[in-house]
Every structure is written in C-alpha cells, then in structure tokens.
C-alpha cells in the first residue's frame, strides 16, 4: 500500500487491517497521534484523511491506500494554532491536544461558536471544560467570543 503521509509518499507493508493509528505510531514513529479509547469516542487519535478529520483508531490502513494522510507532525512546530493552544491554555495535560488541533484545523474562515463546538464535538477534553480551546480557536480565526468567555491570557 502506498499513501501520502504529511506530504511525502510512503509505502507500508503492514497487514491491511492494521489500525492506521498503530501504523503511524509504531512504523513511522509519529507518536503525536494518541490513543485515548480505541473506539472512536475520544478523538485523541484524530488525523486528516484527504483533508477530513477521522479517528485513526477506527481506520484500517488499507482504507487510506492512495489517500493523503496528515498528522499533527505535518503541521510542523510553529503553527499559530499550536502556539495559541499553549498560550490560551487550551492545552492542559496535552493528551487530547494534537487530535483537537487536527479537528480544529479544518474549520472554515469565519466559524461561529456553534460551528466550532460542532467541529470539536467528537474530541473529548477532561481538563479544560473547552472554554480555553474556544479562546484559542477564535483568536486564530480572528472571531469574537461571547463577552463572559472572552478572557484571554493577557487578562
């Protein structure tokens, strides 16, 4: 099987029913993709397949044959949303953060708060209560938040 991984063509010899998550983590050393539940509920393993967020724990690697796969590592180390997740404390323990960022990265140019919530509804965070995640995403998109939630790290 051959697919594009973070922009580079790659060939894998794994069993076709191997979980995409395991192939990414164990064969490619891309451990930014996390396993939180193994059943597609928590979203910690979210990656993009052809630009759409999917739970890589549910995807057999055969299914991405010929597809474009992007993991958190594909964003590099200096994406503005990554900095905002840290600075606005949208990341606390950090285990959900890569998946959360991969889900958020697909948002359109001027998302409403409801659109942000819907886009992130499949990604569980147990630390933040989500408000700080909205603050990071809204700041990235230049969108205002409801006044009571709008505290930023500068306050």
């Amino acid at each position: 099987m051959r697919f594009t991984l973070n922009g580079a063509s790659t060939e894998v010899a794994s069993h076709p029913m191997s979980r995409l998550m395991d192939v990414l983590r164990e064969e490619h050393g891309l451990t930014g993709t996390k396993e939180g539940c193994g059943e597609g509920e928590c979203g910690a393993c979210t990656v993009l397949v052809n630009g759409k967020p999917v739970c890589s724990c549910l995807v057999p690697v055969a299914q991405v044959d010929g597809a474009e796969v992007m993991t958190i590592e594909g964003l590099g180390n200096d994406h503005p949303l990554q900095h905002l997740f840290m600075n606005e404390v949208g990341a606390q323990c950090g285990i959900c953060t890569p998946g959360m960022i991969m889900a958020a990265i697909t948002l359109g140019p001027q998302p409403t708060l409801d659109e942000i919530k819907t886009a992130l509804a499949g990604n569980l965070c147990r630390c933040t209560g989500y408000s700080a995640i909205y603050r990071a995403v809204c700041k990235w998109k230049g969108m205002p938040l409801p006044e009571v939630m709008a505290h930023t790290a500068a306050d």
Partner: protein
Amino acid sequence: MAAVGSSVARKDGIGKATGGALYADDIVFPGMLFGRTIRSTIPRGRVKSIRLDFDTTGFTIVDYRDVPGKNAVALIAEDQPFLVEDEVRHMAEPIMLLAHADRERLNAANVVIDYEEETPLFDPELSDEVFKTIDIEKGDVTAALAGDDLVLVEGTYRTGHQEHIYIEPNGVIAVPEGAGVVIHGSMQCPFYVIKALRCLFGEHPPLRVIQTETGGGFGGKEEYPSMIAGHAALLAIKSGKPVKIIYDRVEDMVATTKRHPAIVKHRTAVTRDGRLVAMDIDVLLDGGAYITLSPTVLSRGCIHAAGPYRCDNIHIHGRAVFTNTPPNGAFRGFGAPQTEFAVEVHMERIAEALGLDPVEVRRKNALRPGDTTATGQTLRDDCSALMVLDEAVRRTDFLKKRDACKGTNRAMGLSLFYHGAGFTGGGERTLKSRARLELTPTGVRIATGSTEIGQGTRTMHAQIVTDALGIPYEDVTVAQPDTALVADSGPTVASRTCMVVGKILEECAHEMRGKLGALSPAEYYAQHGPLTVERMYEPPDWITWDDQTYRGDAYATFGWGCDVIELELDTDTYEVRPVKLTTVQEFGRPIHPALARGQIEGGTAQGLGYALLERVVMRNGAMANSTLTNYTIPTTLDMPVLDVVMMENPYPGGPFGAKGLGELPMDGPAPAVVNALRHLGLDVREIPATPELIALSGAA
C-alpha cells in the same frame, strides 16, 4: 514586571501542541516486552486452580510466588495484594502477569482460572466490615434537636461512582537497571510508587521512578500507578527486559479506582427564621474491596459535611465500609463533593420547609471570620463565604431571574461551597515535604517531586521562584520528577502543590537570594560553582489538631465558591440542558490567572458531568458500561457558557497569598444543578440526575 499574577508563557514549551511531548505509551526501549494483567472474573471467592492454555514459549509469567518482599501495595494500610494469592475480593483483581515481545501472542494467551465462588456483598448499607469510623462533635446535638419551637428537616442524599476519564489511560514502563529497576510512567506521586516498590521488593534493589508527561490525573493517578509499576517491575526483573504495561480504556475503567459512592443522611433543627441550631449528619462511603485511601477520603468528606455554615451543635458520624467492588480511591474533591452535594440540597429543602428564600437562609448561616467550623476551627480573615455568595447573586441578578423562570421549563439553582487546602490537620507536619533549588550555569532549577499533570505545576512554581529570587522568568527551569534527582515534596494531591510546595520554594528562593547577595545566579555560579538550597515545609505554628477527637484546625485555609446555574429541562425526555453557569471563587490569589481559570473551567465541567451524565452501572461487582460510548463525559455540545469570576482574599501562609484551588471547583456544580431542578418542582436527591432518575422523582 512581576511574574506572579500574570499569565506568562508556560514552561511546558510547545511539545504538547506539536505532538512532541512524550507520554508513557510513546516511549520505546530496545528489547521491550509488553505486559498484560490476568484478572479475576468473579467478585468474591477463592482461586482453586490456574491453567495456562497457550504455548508459553517466549513468555514471562509472574504470580504471587514471584514477589520477593511483601505482597501488598503499601499505602495507608498494607491489605491490598499486588497479585491474588488465594482470596479474590473483587472483579478484575490482578492474579497473574504475562509479558511477551509480540502483542498479538500476548493478547491471545488464554489463562483458565477455576474458582470457588462465594456470595458477594455489594450493598454498603449491609456491610459490617468497617475500614474507618469518624465522629466529629461540636456542642450537644441531642439536646439541641429537642429544643422548643424548632423545625426539623430530614433527608437522605445519594451520589454515585465517578470515573476519572483522564484521556491518557494508566501506563508505565519498567526498565531493569543493575540489580534494580527504573519506572517511567504516567503518575501523580512518584514517591508513593517508590514506597510501594520498597514494600514489594524489600530495601535492597535500587529503585528509581521517573514521571513521564502525564495525560491527566484528577486523583486517578494518585495511588493506582503504584500497582501497575509493581506489576511491570516484577515482569522486568524476571525477564531481564524492559516491560511496558499500558491499559486500554476498558481495562482502565473496569480495574482502576473511582470516586466513592456515598449515602449522606441529614437531620437538622432550624429556627423558624432560618438559623441552624443542630445538624446531625451520617456519612457512609462505599470503600470497595480494600482500604486504599478510604480513611482519608472519609475524613475530608466528614470535615466538609456541614457545609460552609455556622452552627453551634453538630454531630457528623462517618463510616467507610467494605464491599466486593474494585477499591474506590482519590478523585478531585476527595469526599467533599459527595458531602457538599448533600448539605447544599438539604439547605435548599430547609428553606422550602420554612418558606424562606434559600439565598437568605444561606446568607444568614454562612461562615464569617471568627466563626467556628464543625471541628472547632476558628476562621480567620481569609473566610469569604459571604463575599462569593453576594457576588454570585448580584452578578447573575439571581433573585429576579430565578423568579422570572417560574412557569417555564427553565430554572436557576445555586450552591455555596468551600474546600480546605493541603493535607488535613497535622498531615502537613507529618509529611515533612521538602523542595530544592539548584543553581545552574544559567539560572536556577526547581527540583521537586511535584508533578505537572496539566494543572500548571512547572509554570506556577517557576513564577513563584522568579519573583522571590528577583531574576528573569526565563532563567528558571524545572526538573522532571525523578526520585533519584529531586526532593520529596509530597504527593501532588489535596490542592497543595501551589500553596504548600510553592511556599517551600518561595522560602528556598529567599534563602538562596541571601547567599547570592547582589549576584545573579549565573554570576554566582561562575565565581563560586554549584549551590543548592533545600528546605522543609513548616505549617503555620497556630495549627492545632487532634486526630483522635477530630478537634482543631482541619486546614490552614479554605477556598470559597458559589455556583449559579441556569438550565432547561426537556419536559418530554427529561434531559437537562445547562445554559449558563456562573462561578465565583476565592482562592487567595491566582499565581497564573489563565491556568487558574483553566482549573475552574475544567473542574466545573467535571462537576457538571458528575451532576448529570456520568453514571457508572455496576453489574455483579464490575462496571458494565466501561467504554466512552456508554459512560459519557461532557463534550463541547454538553457544556454551557461558563462565566468565571476569580476573587482575591490573600492567605498570609501561602506563596504571594495563594491558597489551593484544584479541587474547589468540583464541589459546586452538582448541588447547583439539583437545586435548579427543585425550582422546576422535581424532588431530586441523587446524582447523576439522569433523565431516567428525574422522570422517576417525585414533586418537590
């Protein structure tokens, strides 16, 4: 500019947002094996025989006979075995350990265990094996209850299990080193793990524990990592190879600790104008199959059971008892969310019984400076119950908006709560926590066992040292907790990491400044070489506490909070939709406002899950809904708008006036939600208030 009080860049770096931060499961050692735990499938009985129904080639197999020291996870007591010898006391109890290089072969290995089954005990009210009893007595409750012209209000309140759902399940790697072993793992308390391993292996082999990046704790990684570390270490020493044990979500939910279910009974005498005269409170905690931390959970639960209220006559009787269920353990709040739920719903019912406004009843009875708590502790100027109550009522226009909801499917509810910071009573004195500051060529390094589990330990400690030492924030680094290299600053629990460990670090910094004179750390290092300052925690000298009578100063200080929730009830499905939650909290002074806000928002979310969603279904002594599909925690779509107000009332004994904060936000949401449901005419006295429970509840 001062570092303390501003939301400076965090010491975590960018790794958590780039995927670069390494958690236990991300780490690989050469030649590493995978470990698996074979667990009991009955809740009570004896192991009759064990048969290995697989090709054992390449397997390392460990049972209780491989334990070199004592087969007990050392904590408060030494009653819980690492591996069952004969008696099974709960479902999913560890019996045997397997390790193999090939995970598929490991998972396919079939171990057949025959049992002699015994009748299990699941109902804590029927249990006569009592782990701990506590009685707190103030005044004369019996006489006061019999007083003239008083109204008696009674009630029973129930809270269920709660599962932590840190998004990173438990996991460790044990690596043989010399004659001993090094543990790398997800945990809150590396020195607890050392203590447990010393008991398991005896004093001889060198043992070292290093915390990896930890994907959430909430109490769930306080004591259980000692068990997993012991298992991995036994396999590593027997095989001579590194062994990784990572629980999957189901194993983590079925086998590890949860919040103690509670039954709390109140009998209260109150004057017709709403003054509390006598409170008789009975607290029953389901401890599960072993003692673990139940005595201290019970202690904190009982101490908070009368709520943030003044009353001259109080009797609190508490018991933590055995059942044949997996042991319950530490969870953010540590007994107080259970008992504060009960007293806050009870206060609402007292107001209803008297025909008085529940805000007015709370205001009349709220603790003020100079008042004494149930344990006889006289509160100081850092008591803020009235301040947070008044601000929450004012900010939400509570009285007007609550009344405007009448006749609709919308309602507002309120709760007033408090939480003691640090270990109880003389606990901090006994603990003798130490912290260390080390000069480096470029600045100073903090070396403590306090773990970063998302709450911001690294950053907040660095801020305190920065300002106390008067150096740039960038010159302070924080060592990863490694028991071979850092001072034992006590466990990362009990809302103590800022207030207690931060205080030791502040004093270390002052002492170091004295030694540096006018030099910067780098200048001093260049001229004189390394310098280390290590100090021990000294609790305030006015604290007195009697562990036998439960009289005295239970906590050096308390944080205070008031939650107001606005919610909607679907009158067809009985689903509750929280619309907005306003929380006003006073915790001394925020060191890092954005991190502090994160504790409040996250704790509030966890409290809302506890209130409405998170129901653990136990079937034959095991969690039946042990997946995230049917044990649901709040998602983005479940969370209301959060309005967080942080008020300040500095505590002189904390660093820069800070108190503890981590647990306080957990205490408020559940009673606020249930009190709102009462305003809709629903007599709910139990959480989680699922649609099924609400549908079956009577009229308030």
